């Protein structure tokens, strides 16, 4: 059958199910979406689906192909109704056949979610009072009657009221649709904790974009209060906030922006006494202060802790951006500036002046670098200092190397493994490579799955996921582990779960044993 089709006739799930029949598929999952008798507190009696057919089919086919590639399922298809439907009628059908149930469930869920978000299908609802209205917003349909989120049709325009915070689901569709992000990338962001040092001109865009992107935990460190002279370049704050601690106002605004994000405001400056604990509590540090003392303090702390960090500074119309990664060849701030300058020597925003878009641009670049690091998209980047001139719009990338004279304590790290502690997934081509990584392999598959392993692909350490879930066994407390399962789906979930418990040094084998075998 076609991977995705639109049907003007009633859907026939039995036919579709038999079309997906596959003797090698041990799991079949299906979703059926039906016309509900109410929406937004109004009685729905009938509805009509209208699709932009050409685009809808193309986009639908793309989604099914994505699901098959992402979850490694054997067959998948989706059929969406168009035309008039009565209450209770089948509106959309998704079916997936996979080797195991995990992939089948995940792929089925992925397809229906993406179809609802991305396929251009509009719904005209007819209500019991004779009225009707177009609904193109998938989120609206998910709300129960009485929810404050409503389309109040006045004939000319619809109005979105502020959604109930608890009921609102933050919509990441526009970034998840990027092939490099996807649901896996979104899960990485949700599992990440970022320390932002400084909530001023650089920190404001960093905080806004990281919160909006769904970074799970943001720790904000800044001991300053909002001053009138800040507002021209820190528009997260308003006139009414003058005098209040910046971190307190920022936390309010960011929580209003995205309820998924846990914001931890710390109304203190980074000091030698607190910086190490702050840095260790997060996966990544974004340095946004306006002084050398803090920048070098943070640089030294990330080097000691082995955490990646993003640095930026601005001067009038220019800015500099530097990313630090805890890799053996990577330069830290002191490698670039062996003689730490004293504050006041080269001017800061107060002394030299600055236009708002300059720190805003550099802050946005820092947020971009942070997201690329969290998503693992910067693996091929070479260390450099990027200089941006906002007057001429010239950018210049200066290649940088670690200074062998730089005497900073470098973190140990397993030999041969160039992976950050925070990488959720690691890729290996062969079992030998994985075994040589310095990580201990832990097989979380069930015993019956291991029974068929060829002799050369047996992993001695076995902690079945079912036993872990039931609490019969504990995951080993110390050490660095590469968790493996059949396709890398269960292992990734376990790693994400362990990370939420503050555990580092655990990674998932991307693609699972299936990849190693092929």
């Amino acid at each position, binding site marked *: 059958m076609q991977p995705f089709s639109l049907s003007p006739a009633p859907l026939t799930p039995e036919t579709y199910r038999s079309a997906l029949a596959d003797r090698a598929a041990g799991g079949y999952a299906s979703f059926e979406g039906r016309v509900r008798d109410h929406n937004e507190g109004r009685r729905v009696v009938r509805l009509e689906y209208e699709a932009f057919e050409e685009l809808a089919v193309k986009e639908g086919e793309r989604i099914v192909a994505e699901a098959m590639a992402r979850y490694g399922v054997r067959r998948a298809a989706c059929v969406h109704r168009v035309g008039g439907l009565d209450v209770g009628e089948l509106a959309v059908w998704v079916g997936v056949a996979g080797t195991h149930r995990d992939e089948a469930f995940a792929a089925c869920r992925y397809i229906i979610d993406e179809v609802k978000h991305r396929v251009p299908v509009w719904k005209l609802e007819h209500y019991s009072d004779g009225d009707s209205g177009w609904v193109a917003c998938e989120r609206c349909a998910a709300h129960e009657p009485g929810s404050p989120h409503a389309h109040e049709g006045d004939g000319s325009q619809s109005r979105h009221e502020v959604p109930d915070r608890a009921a609102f689901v933050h919509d990441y569709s526009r970034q998840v649709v990027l092939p490099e992000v996807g649901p896996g990338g979104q899960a990485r962001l949700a599992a990440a904790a970022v320390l932002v040092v400084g909530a*001023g001109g650089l920190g404001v865009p960093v905080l806004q974009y990281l919160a909006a992107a769904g970074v799970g935990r943001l720790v904000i460190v800044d001991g300053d209060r909002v001053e009138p002279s800040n507002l021209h370049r820190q528009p997260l704050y308003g006139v009414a906030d003058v005098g209040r601690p910046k971190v307190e106002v920022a936390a309010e605004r960011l929580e209003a922006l995205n309820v998924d994000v846990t914001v931890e405001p710390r109304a203190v400056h980074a000091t030698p006494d607190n910086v190490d604990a702050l840095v260790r509590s997060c996966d990544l540090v974004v340095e946004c202060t306006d002084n050398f003392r803090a*920048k070098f303090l943070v640089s030294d702390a990330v080097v000691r802790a082995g955490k990646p960090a993003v640095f930026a500074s601005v001067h009038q119309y220019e800015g500099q951006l530097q990313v630090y990664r805890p890799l053996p060849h990577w330069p830290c701030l002191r490698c670039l500036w062996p003689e730490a300058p004293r504050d006041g020597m080269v001017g800061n925003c107060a002394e030299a002046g600055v236009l708002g878009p300059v720190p805003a641009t550099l802050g946005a670049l820092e947020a971009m670098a942070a997201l690329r690091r969290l998503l693992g998209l910067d693996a091929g980047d070479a260390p450099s200092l990027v200089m941006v001139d906002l007057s001429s719009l010239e950018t210049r990338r200066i290649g940088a190397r670690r200074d062998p004279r730089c005497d900073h304590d470098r973190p140990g790290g397993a030999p041969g493994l160039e992976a950050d502690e925070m990488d959720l997934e690691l890729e290996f081509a062969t079992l030998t490579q994985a075994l040589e990584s310095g990580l201990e392999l832990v097989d979380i598959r069930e015993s019956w799955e291991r029974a068929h392993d060829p002799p050369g692909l047996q992993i001695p350490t076995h902690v079945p996921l079912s036993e872990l879930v039931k609490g019969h066994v504990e995951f080993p407390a110390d050490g660095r582990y590469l968790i493996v399962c059949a396709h890398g789906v269960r292992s990734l979930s376990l790693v994400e779960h362990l990370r939420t418990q503050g555990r580092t040094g655990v990674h998932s084998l991307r693609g699972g044993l299936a990849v190693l075998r092929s």
Partner: protein
Amino acid sequence: MIVEVRYFAVLRERAGLAAESVETAVGTAAELYDELAARHAFDLPRTLLRVAVNEEFADWSHRLSPGDRIVFIPPVAGG
């Protein structure tokens, strides 16, 4: 020889220009900075700056060649 020099931040302000072609007889990046510091009255000590030659950070002892693109980079702290 002629080299292409670019200035950033406080050096740009002090020199009053962002870039210039410089005819010079000096041998190293350090000597070039000292020569230009005298001409433009730069007061930042060289030890605080970094120099990049042809888009790579270089040592001050780096020997210059005709046509090299040289950038003097002061540290920047604003945020």
